[in-house]
C-alpha cells in the first residue's frame, strides 16, 4: 500500500458493543393489528362506507400543457344524480398578479393549482374539475359531459431541454432562486444550489485517476397498491371530517387548511389503514375536493378513489434526472476530488428532491475538495413527490458507478477502496457538519465477511456489484399519549401513521420500559383531535422519533405511579424504586399490575409526551448483488442479493428485515424495469401496472438482510432510522454487477433489456425515454 495513505484506523473486529439485556426489544412478536389484515377485516381508506355517501370523479387534462379558455359544466350539472361540480373557481383565490407572486403566495398558488388547474393545465392528468353524484357510474358519465376549451401549448418533458433558453416557460412567476437572489427573467429553473469546499480543480490535476461520466434516469413511481382516496364531510356547522389513507394526519390537516383558507382546528383527519405509501401519501390530492364537493352537495359525505391510471398520471412520482459525476483519486486509493451536477425534473411545480440527491451522493466518503451543483427544473409532468430517501437512489447510482470505475482503474477491491475512504466519527461530512458515531465501516466489514462475498462467483455473463450509501434520516415532531388501566394494561395512542408495523414496534418500547408483557400494551392510532401534533411518517423517523416519545412517556408513567405509591406507602416518592417491572420502597413491593390497580383507584394515570429530537444520526448501508445477463436478449436475472445496514438498535427484528427487503425490491424495479414513458405530445403511455412493470415474486431471489447494530449514542435505546436507506444503493449495486458481467457500463435507468443489448452492440442507440 502506498506510504502516504491517510491514517484511517479501522476497527476490523466486528463485535457488537456490549449489549444491554432487553427482553422484548429485538425480538419478533406477532403484531396486534396483524389479525385484521390477514382476515380481510382491516378497513383501508378505499373501504370507507357511510350512509348517504356520494361518489366523486375527477376530470383530468388530456394535454400536457394548455391554457384553459373556458369550462362549461352545465350539461354535467343537469345530469340526474349529479349533486355537485367544482373547478378552480371554487377554490379561494390568491391576491396579486400571478406573474409576480412573492414566495409564500407562490407556494400557496402551487398547492391550489395542483388540486385543480388554475388558468393552465401543466401535465397529462392534471385535475380540471370534479363531480359528486349518487353513484360512481353517474359521476363518470357527468365528467364526460364537462366541456373544456383548451389552447394547447408546446410541452417540455426532458429536464435538460427545459433548462434551455428557448424552452417554453411553464410558470410566468417562476424566477431562478440562487439562495435568496432571484433571476430577472421567468424560466423553468426554479432554483440552483451549490455546495463547495477546498479546490477541486487543483486536486483533479494532482489525481492519479479521474473518471467523469454522465447519467440519465427516468421518472419512477412509489407503486403503493392502494390508490389515493379520500372521503370528506363538510358539515352544516362548518366542521370538516376527512377519512383518508395518509402518512401524516396533522401535516395533511395543515395543507387542507391552507388550500381552503380556513383554520386547521375546523378539520378532523381520521387515519384509515394505509395500503402502502413510501412518501407518495404526504401531499393532499383528493382531500380538498372531497370537502368542496361535500359542501356543494348539501353537506353530504363524498368519497373519491383514484383509478391506477390516475395514480400514475397525477400523483407524485420522483424526478427523472440528469447527473454528471467526476471523481479523482490518488494512487493509494484515496478520493482527493469530486464534482457533481444534478438536474432533477420537479414535474410541473417546483420542489424536486435534488438537494437530497446532492447531499447524499458523495456523503459516504471523506472528500476535502468538491463542488456540487443542484438544479430544480419544472417540466410538463406531474409534480414530484417524495419517494423513499427522495432523489437518492438515482444520485447514488451515478456516484457509485463512477467509484466502481475508479476502483477498476486502480485495480482495488471495491470494499477495500470504500473502507479506505469511509466517513467515520469526527470526520467532516460533505454538508460541513462533524460526523457522529455511525456504522458505514461496520456495514462494509459485514459484507466483506459475509458468505456471499466470500464465495467466488463463477460462470459466463455473471457479475458481482457492490455499492454503499448514506441517507440523512429525519427527526421531526412526535406525540403519544398513554393511559394505565386498572388491570395493569396500558393503552398507547400514537400520532404517527403506521405504514408497515410501527404500532407493534412502539408497543414493544413501552412494554420494555414498563417491564410488562407486550400483550398488555394496546397501540392504537389517534385521529388529529385525539393526539398531539405529529409530523408525517417519513424520513425513516417513526421508530427513532416516536420511539423516543414512547420511551419518555413510559418514564413519565413510572414517575407518576411512583409518586402515588409514595403517598400510599407513606414514603417520599424518591425512595420508590422501579426495576424490572417491580415498584419497591423498603420492604414494600408491588408489580406494575398491582400498582396499577391501586393507584388508578386514587386517580387515573395518563401521560402525554411530545418530542422534537434535534440531533439526527444518518443511516449507512452496503449492498452486494450477483446477476446473470442473457447476452442475446439483454435480460438480467438476480442470482443473489445481500444487504447490510446499520440500524443502531433493531426494535422489531422482522420489521427491520422487511424494510430492507422491501427497499431492495423497489430498488430492483427502479434499476431494471420501471420508468415513465411519454409520447412527444406529453401523454403518459404506460399508466397501468401491465406496462409500468414492478418486480413480481418471480423476479427476485430471497434477499439476505444483515442487520448491523452500532447503537446511536443520541437515542436512549440506540435507535437509528432504517426505512429509507435500503433503496438507495440498489440501482448502483446492480449496475456494477452488470458491468462485471458484460464489461460495459450503463448510464441510464432503467437498465432495460433494449439498453443492455445496445450497450453490447446490438441495435441502434435508444434515446432516453422522454419520461
Amino acid at each position, binding site marked *: 500500500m502506498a506510504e502516504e495513505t491517510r491514517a484511517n484506523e479501522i476497527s476490523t473486529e466486528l463485535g457488537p458493543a456490549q449489549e444491554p439485556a432487553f427482553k422484548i426489544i429485538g425480538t419478533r412478536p406477532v403484531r396486534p393489528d396483524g389479525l385484521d389484515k390477514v382476515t380481510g377485516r382491516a378497513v383501508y381508506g378505499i373501504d370507507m362506507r357511510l350512509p348517504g355517501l356520494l361518489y366523486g370523479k375527477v376530470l383530468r387534462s388530456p394535454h400536457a400543457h394548455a391554457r384553459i379558455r373556458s369550462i362549461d359544466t352545465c350539461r354535467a350539472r343537469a345530469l340526474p344524480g349529479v349533486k355537485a361540480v367544482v373547478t378552480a373557481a371554487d377554490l379561494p383565490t390568491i391576491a396579486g398578479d400571478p406573474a409576480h407572486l412573492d414566495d409564500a403566495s407562490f407556494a400557496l398558488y402551487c398547492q391550489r393549482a395542483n388540486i385543480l388547474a388554475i388558468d393552465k393545465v401543466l401535465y397529462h392528468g392534471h385535475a380540471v374539475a370534479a363531480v359528486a353524484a349518487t353513484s360512481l357510474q353517474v359521476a363518470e358519465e357527468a365528467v364526460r359531459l364537462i366541456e373544456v376549451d383548451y389552447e394547447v401549448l408546446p410541452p417540455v418533458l426532458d429536464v435538460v431541454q427545459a433548462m434551455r433558453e428557448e424552452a417554453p416557460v411553464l410558470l410566468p412567476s417562476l424566477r431562478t432562486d440562487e439562495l435568496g437572489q432571484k433571476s430577472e427573467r421567468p424560466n423553468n429553473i426554479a432554483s440552483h444550489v451549490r455546495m463547495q469546499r477546498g479546490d477541486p480543480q487543483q486536486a483533479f490535476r494532482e489525481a492519479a485517476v479521474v473518471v467523469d461520466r454522465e447519467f440519465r434516469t427516468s421518472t419512477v413511481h412509489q407503486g403503493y397498491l392502494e390508490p389515493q382516496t379520500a372521503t370528506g364531510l363538510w358539515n352544516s356547522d362548518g366542521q370538516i371530517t376527512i377519512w383518508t389513507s395518509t402518512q401524516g394526519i396533522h401535516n395533511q390537516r395543515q395543507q387542507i387548511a391552507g388550500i381552503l383558507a380556513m383554520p386547521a382546528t375546523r378539520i378532523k383527519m381520521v387515519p384509515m389503514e394505509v395500503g402502502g405509501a413510501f412518501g407518495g401519501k404526504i401531499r393532499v390530492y383528493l382531500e380538498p375536493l372531497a370537502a368542496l364537493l361535500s359542501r356543494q352537495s348539501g353537506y353530504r359525505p363524498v368519497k373519491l378513489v383514484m383509478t391506477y391510471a390516475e395514480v400514475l398520471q397525477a400523483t407524485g412520482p420522483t424526478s427523472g434526472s440528469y447527473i454528471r459525476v467526476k471523481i479523482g483519486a490518488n494512487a493509494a486509493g484515496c478520493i482527493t476530488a469530486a464534482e457533481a451536477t444534478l438536474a432533477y425534473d420537479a414535474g410541473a411545480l417546483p420542489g424536486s428532491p435534488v438537494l437530497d440527491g446532492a447531499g447524499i451522493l458523495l456523503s459516504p466518503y471523506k472528500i476535502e475538495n468538491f463542488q456540487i451543483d443542484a438544479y430544480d427544473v419544472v417540466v410538463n409532468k406531474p409534480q414530484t413527490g417524495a419517494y423513499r430517501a427522495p432523489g437518492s437512489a438515482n444520485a447514488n447510482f451515478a456516484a457509485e458507478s463512477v467509484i466502481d470505475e475508479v476502483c477498476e482503474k486502480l485495480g482495488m477491491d471495491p470494499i477495500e477502496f470504500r473502507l479506505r475512504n469511509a466517513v467515520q466519527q469526527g470526520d467532516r461530512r460533505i454538508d460541513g457538519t462533524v460526523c457522529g458515531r455511525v456504522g458505514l465501516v461496520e456495514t462494509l466489514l459485514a459484507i466483506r465477511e459475509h458468505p456471499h462475498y466470500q464465495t467466488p462467483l463463477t460462470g459466463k455473463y455473471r457479475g458481482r456489484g457492490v455499492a454503499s450509501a448514506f441517507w440523512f434520516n429525519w427527526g421531526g415532531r412526535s406525540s403519544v399519549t398513554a393511559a394505565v388501566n386498572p388491570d395493569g394494561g396500558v393503552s398507547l395512542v400514537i400520532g404517527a401513521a403506521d405504514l408497515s408495523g410501527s404500532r407493534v414496534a412502539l408497543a414493544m418500547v413501552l412494554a420494555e420500559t414498563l417491564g410488562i408483557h407486550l400483550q398488555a400494551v394496546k397501540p392504537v392510532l389517534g385521529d388529529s383531535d385525539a393526539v398531539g401534533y405529529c409530523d408525517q411518517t417519513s424520513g425513516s423517523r417513526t421508530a427513532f422519533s416516536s420511539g423516543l416519545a414512547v420511551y419518555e412517556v413510559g418514564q413519565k408513567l413510572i414517575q407518576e405511579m411512583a409518586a402515588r405509591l409514595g403517598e400510599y406507602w407513606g414514603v417520599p416518592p424518591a425512595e420508590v424504586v422501579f426495576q424490572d417491572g417491580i415498584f419497591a420502597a423498603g420492604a414494600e413491593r408491588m408489580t406494575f399490575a398491582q400498582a396499577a390497580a391501586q393507584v388508578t383507584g386514587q386517580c387515573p394515570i395518563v401521560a402525554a409526551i411530545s418530542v422534537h429530537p434535534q440531533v439526527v444520526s444518518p443511516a449507512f448501508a452496503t449492498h452486494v448483488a450477483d446477476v446473470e445477463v442473457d447476452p442475446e436478449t439483454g435480460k438480467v436475472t438476480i442470482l443473489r442479493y445481500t444487504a447490510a445496514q446499520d440500524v443502531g438498535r433493531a426494535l422489531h427484528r422482522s420489521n427491520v428485515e422487511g424494510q430492507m427487503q422491501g427497499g431492495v425490491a423497489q430498488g430492483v424495479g427502479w434499476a431494471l424495469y420501471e420508468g415513465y414513458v411519454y409520447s412527444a405530445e406529453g401523454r403518459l*403511455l404506460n399508466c397501468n401496472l401491465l406496462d409500468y412493470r414492478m418486480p413480481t415474486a418471480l423476479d427476485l431471489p430471497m434477499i439476505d438482510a444483515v442487520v448491523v447494530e452500532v447503537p446511536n449514542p443520541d437515542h436512549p435505546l440506540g435507535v437509528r432510522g432504517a426505512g429509507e436507506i435500503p433503496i438507495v444503493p440498489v440501482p448502483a449495486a446492480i449496475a456494477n454487477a452488470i458491468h462485471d458481467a458484460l464489461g460495459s457500463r450503463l448510464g441510464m435507468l432503467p437498465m432495460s*433489456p433494449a439498453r443492455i443489448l445496445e450497450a453490447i452492440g446490438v*441495435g441502434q442507440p435508444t434515446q432516453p425515454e422522454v419520461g
Partner: protein
Amino acid sequence: MQSFRYVRVRSIGEAVPLLAEQACVLSGGTDLLVQLREGRRHATLVVDVKFIPELTELYYDPATGLHLGAAVPCYRINNDPEVAHLYPGLLDATTLVGGIQIQGRATVGGNLCNASPAADSIPALIVHGATCEIAGPAGRRRLPVEAFCAGPGQTVLGKGELLIELRLPPPAAHFGAAYLRFTPRSDMDIAVAGAAAAVQLDQAGTIIRSARVALGAVAPVPLLVSEAGAALAGQLPSAEAIEAAARLAEAAARPIDDVRGTAAQRKHLALVLTRRALQAAIARAQVNTLGRANGHV
C-alpha cells in the same frame, strides 16, 4: 364501465342472431372487460358463450386431433395430459399467458379473437397447423389459423359469426413444437417478441421432413414465416440450418417501436427466439416417439 346488457346463451343457434347488432362475445373476459372499462371497445350487448357445449369441449381424437373449444380456459389445457404429451408448443403458450389468475379465465379462442399482434397462443396454434371452425348466419366455414387475424385487434369474422373450435391435427412420431417469448419481467408481461416453431422429423428422427415458424409482436398480425419452414425441409437439424431459418425469420419481422420495446430489439429477438424455439422443438421431436411423454413433464 359504460353500461350494456348481458345474456348467457346455451347454443350456437341462440348466439349467432344476437351477434348481428353491436354485440361482443364474452368467454374468458380478461381482455374484453379491460377494453370495455377503458373505452377501447363499445358494446350494447355482451353475449356469454361459456355455456355452449361445443365451445367448452376439450378432447383428443387420434384421427381428427385435438378439439379445443373456443371457450376452454387455459388452466384446463394446462392440466390436460393429452395436450402436454402431444401439443407442447400450445402448452408453452397457455402456461405463459398473464399469470395463474389470468390462466384461470383466459381462453385460447378469446386470445385468438382479440387478435393482438403479441398474443401468446396464436404463434403456437399456427405452428401446430390449427384450423378455426366458424359458425355464422351463412352456416359453417373453416380456415387455417394463420389467416384468422386481419390486423391489430381485427379478425376475418363477419357480422354474426362465432368461433366455435380450434382443431390441431394429430402429430406423428418425431414431431416437436415449442413457443418462447421475451418479457423483461419473468411473468405478467405482454410479449416484447414471441416465436413458435414446430418440426416434423422423418421416421428415423434424423432429417427434418417439414417445419413451421411463426412470430409474435413483430408485425400487425402473428406471422407465419413460411420461407423459414421451407428452408428447413429436407435438412439435417444442424446449427447452420437453424441459423439460416432464424435469419429468414428476422428478415420477415417488421416490428414497431412502442412502450414495450424498440423495433431494433424486436428484430434481434426474432432471430434469437426463433433459433431457440427451433432448438427446443427439434430436441422434443428427437425424443418424441409417440410412446413417451414429450415436453412438459
